[in-house]
């Protein structure tokens, strides 16, 4: 169900856990789906022995994709007009991520009622791994 302008107020927050105990297999699944087979994400031997990381880590775009699920579940399908942000920390196997949208503006632009959201995804230690914003059309 799309969000309704009359029931949304600035400052409203919506959170969802978007992954619990991220697996290496899901990272590989995302590699296959996205086409990005960078061994930093898919190859523990390369990531640790050649690149010097403690393990493989998730594609930033996997985090953004999972964050997008929180948004579309909240605002409705096909409602986003903008979604963007920065990858602020790496996401590792075993991480549990929670994504939060906070309404920052609700107004009419070009005759369409829209809401702006601050978007933040944090890991189980409260570290922000993705920080950005989104805009959605409301009913």
């Amino acid at each position, binding site marked *: 169900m799309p969000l309704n302008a009359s029931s949304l107020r600035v400052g409203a927050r919506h959170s969802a856990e978007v992954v619990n105990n991220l697996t290496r297999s899901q990272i590989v699944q995302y590699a296959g789906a996205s086409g990005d087979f*960078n*061994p930093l994400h*898919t190859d523990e031997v390369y990531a640790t022995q050649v*690149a010097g990381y403690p393990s493989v880590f998730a*594609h930033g775009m996997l985090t953004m994709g999972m964050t997008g699920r929180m948004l579309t579940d909240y605002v409705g399908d096909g409602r986003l*007009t903008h*979604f963007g942000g920065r*990858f602020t920390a790496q996401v590792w196997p075993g991480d549990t991520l929670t994504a939060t949208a906070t309404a920052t503006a609700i107004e009419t632009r070009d005759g369409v009622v829209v809401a702006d959201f601050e978007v933040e995804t944090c890991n189980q230690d409260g570290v922000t791994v993705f920080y950005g914003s989104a805009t959605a059309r409301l009913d």
Partner: protein
Amino acid sequence: MTASKFPIEAGFIMTFARAIGDYNPVYRDEDQARNSEVAGIIAPPTFVQASAHYDPDYPLRPQPGVPWFGSGATPTGRPPETQTGATRLAVGGEANGGTSLHAEQHYEYRRPIRPGEVLTLAAHAGKTWEKQGRRGGVLRFEETVIEYRGADGELVVIARAVGVRTEQTVRD
């Protein structure tokens, strides 16, 4: 280079949605999607990322006959110092221990993407800038903008990516 055409297939959307853990039926079930607000299957918001599959030279996909830098018989099939410029830009593990990472991604959506259509891509380089990093020496940022257009030439999605290249391996 990037793909010039991106054919949108229903199975491809389903697979992508599963990979991001999104089991919304609007990404796979035609009957349920038809009766929803969007009146048919659509792609999730970050789906255009998968256009990499249609880039013939995409450096982050193993290619027949080309040594892959991931592990096989040895931890890497291609030492960092032998990587091409394009690969160095796109991946981690440079000769000096630096890493290339995806720093930012921004999308503007004009309408949903639907299976059966073929999007046309036009990519152009955006701004570049440098910044002193706290942990990784000098950070070099590079922006790429990709426009995805529909059959009538109308803009469907504008994707702006920012990549960053560090001089050292990045750890939190």
